[in-house]
């Protein structure tokens, strides 16, 4: 997989090389074994395609959710543990909006606000899906992005801005506080417990025959992958070709120098939170769309995997977050060939720790784009 690549890049890095070599050998052995399984027919091409497709979906969600994290990491130099709960907030706000668009008149306001929850609300009657109710989905996506952006800025004003001169660790601790307060305020307001969102049976899907089996691709999965791809592309354009992007990259590189050069750093920080928050909210909405359910711990449960994606790609690199997300997503699904489901996440975390040890700058290391 990716380890061999880093093996070549790390020449000259001294003591880490033996470890890199071992990893490269392990990765190569796994790939060979995979090829052998395919050749011997123990692993059908259809199930392999299934792993790859599921991995891509997961990867795009981790990647999109990670872009916002990577942005704030590079500009403000701290690991934001409240990021996961921004994902949750985005998903909740977006889906409440979508419920209102699709269900006003048919259901009581209180049921719509709670996404069902303690009130009875039949999601099949509501009939939310990308093909049935495209308007509701689009409105939900926009609301999710907008509200999460505002929330991110509000949190920055309240918590992080007064602490600009403090160390990354202090900010990290504060962000843990934000994560706790935010998540349990949501629980207090809307009550815990998972909610069904979409009308499962009404969502169209297509079946592609592969080898002896077939692969089913749902409309919501495609929506997630396509919209996430477009949003990442848009982020790339903003970072690469606008003055704002240049300012952000300059600030990530050296904040003092950026300020001396006349870059209004506070305004860049504000824009970073807006942009990062919007992407995070959209990610939350899309992940919930693809899963069809939503719980209050959605973001927190994803947080470490998002961190894994961001670290794998090199902390602070937006492109790295995308690549890291896809690598984590695909390799975690692919590892089902060797591992039981319950240990897949364990393997993903082990990969993350190993990358941090062997190559803290990530597999895309050195390319700090934002």
């Amino acid at each position, binding site marked *: 997989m990716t380890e061999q690549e880093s093996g070549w890049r790390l020449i000259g890095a001294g003591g880490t090389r033996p470890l890199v070599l071992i990893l490269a050998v392990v990765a190569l052995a796994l790939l060979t074994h995979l090829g052998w399984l395919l050749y011997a027919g123990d692993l059908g091409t259809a199930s392999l395609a299934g792993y790859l497709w599921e991995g891509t979906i997961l990867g795009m969600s981790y990647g999109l959710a990670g872009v916002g994290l990577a942005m704030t990491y590079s500009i403000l130099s701290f690991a934001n543990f409240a990021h996961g709960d921004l994902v949750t907030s985005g998903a909740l706000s977006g889906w409440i909006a979508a419920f209102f668009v699709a269900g006003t008149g048919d259901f009581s306001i209180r049921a719509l606000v709670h996404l069902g929850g303690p009130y009875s609300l039949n999601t099949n009657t509501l009939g939310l899906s990308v093909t049935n109710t495209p308007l509701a989905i689009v409105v939900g996506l926009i609301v999710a992005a907008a509200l999460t952006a505002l929330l991110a800025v509000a949190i920055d004003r309240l918590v992080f801005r007064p602490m600009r001169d403090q160390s990354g*660790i202090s900010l990290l601790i504060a962000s*843990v506080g934000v994560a*706790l307060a935010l998540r349990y305020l949501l629980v207090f307001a809307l009550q815990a417990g998972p909610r069904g969102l979409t009308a499962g049976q009404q969502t169209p899907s297509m079946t592609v025959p592969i080898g002896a089996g077939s692969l089913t691709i749902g409309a919501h999965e495609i929506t997630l992958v396509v919209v996430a791809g477009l949003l990442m592309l848009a982020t790339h354009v903003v970072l690469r070709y606008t003055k704002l992007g240049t300012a952000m990259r300059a600030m990530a590189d050296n904040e003092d120098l950026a300020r001396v050069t006349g870059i209004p750093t506070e305004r860049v920080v504000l824009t970073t939170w807006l942009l990062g928050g919007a992407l995070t909210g959209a990610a939350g909405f899309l992940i919930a769309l693809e899963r069809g359910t939503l719980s209050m711990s959605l973001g927190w449960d994803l947080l*470490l995997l998002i961190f894994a994606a961001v670290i794998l790609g090199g902390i602070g690199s937006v492109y790295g977050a995308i690549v890291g997300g896809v690598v984590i997503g695909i390799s975690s699904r692919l590892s089902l060939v060797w591992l039981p489901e319950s240990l897949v996440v364990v393997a993903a*975390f082990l990969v993350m*720790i190993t990358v*941090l040890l062997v190559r803290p700058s990530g597999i895309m290391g050195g390319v700090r784009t934002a």
Partner: protein
Amino acid sequence: MSDGPDRPAGQSRRGAAADRLRAFVSVSDARLLLVFAVALYGLFTLVSVVLGYNFNGIVDTLRRITFLSAIYAVLVLALNVQWGYAGLFNIGVAGFMAIGVYTMGMLSSPTTNTFPGLGLPLPIGILGGVLAATVLGLLAALPALRLRGDYLAIVTLAMAEIVRRTYRSPVFQEFSLGSVQLGTGGSRGMNLPENPIRTLFYQNPTEVGSPPNALGNVLFDTAAAIGIQPSVVEGWVYALGLVIVVGGVYWLLQRVGHSPFGRVLKAIREDEVVARALGKDTRAFKIKAFALGCALMGLAGILWRLSGGYVSTTMFQPIYTFYVFVALIIGGAGSTTGSVIGGAVFASLLFEGPNFVRRIVTGYVDVGAAPNTLFDAVAALGSLDVTPLVAYSLSDVNVSALRLVLLGVVLIYLIQNRPEGLLGHRKEVASPIDLTDRDAREGDS
């Protein structure tokens, strides 16, 4: 803590008392701890009386406060070695507790359990658990030496989650090594060895209805004479055992803190480059400090869960690590005495406090039935009726949620405004002799 210098003249009597208290307390940390313990017990006795508990209930409340305070005190002391002394940012506390408890369980649980252990004597199990936590700590120290603080945070959190998810995995629910059957119980959790206190007081400690032995008879009869049930006596003996452990750990860490080893750790915290320039092998010191902290976390976990006789992976969610962190920050990182006080303040006031507030309010004010949702509660505000909102906030589930919100807010407040902890600047200095005057030091905070 006390009134400022510009307090109104009418309060001078109270002010003088506060000054006397402050003078009493500032003589030694032992006095500070004593005054604090008396205040805490006084407060909770009062709360129990207000709640109308009988004598047994009051004693049981105090037992629970003692138990939790002692557990958190050990955990905070352990974390203080890593963060307060060596500056290593470990947010995997729950994972180190988990490996300690599970190793102990797998070594010492009876072979007849649904998820069997090896049935070894308990002391061996405890020792094994502490050792396992130490070994994992040594492994974790590997990244600790190479990584920046925030990377280390992520690595330790991931490590804790790896431990938790591995124990939770159905793969290890029941497995056999050679001919030996073992099991972690997966998501069902596993039973631990019998609470060691029962072996002190009962003839057949493993049986539920066993008659007490001679010692148990004497103690239970005496307690019954003043209206205390046997279960409360057992709990108190366990809690007192924990207090002794806290004392031992406190003493150990005071010694460590004032030894050359501790001074080097503090020097590393202040400036690692300088410490290295002075010829100290900072890597070795950091590894030792990290492993020592992890060993104590394993011990704390074991002592915590042994009392309930059962362990499951939900007891090691990352939130438990953050509890310990809040407690450490309350007490002030870098201070041994502060750690003990922080642990007790967290456990009794922040963690248990909201529930007592709920009980007192619902006991004295009739707020009526709680509405189903916040939506309904807020809708009632339209007709200027606050009670539904109060009732909703005070329901069992919502107090738990609000308690965690409070925790988050306290964490943010402390790190923004009082990063040195509630007691003010108490960080122990690196030099063997405190060159600053204690009063002057407290005055500038």
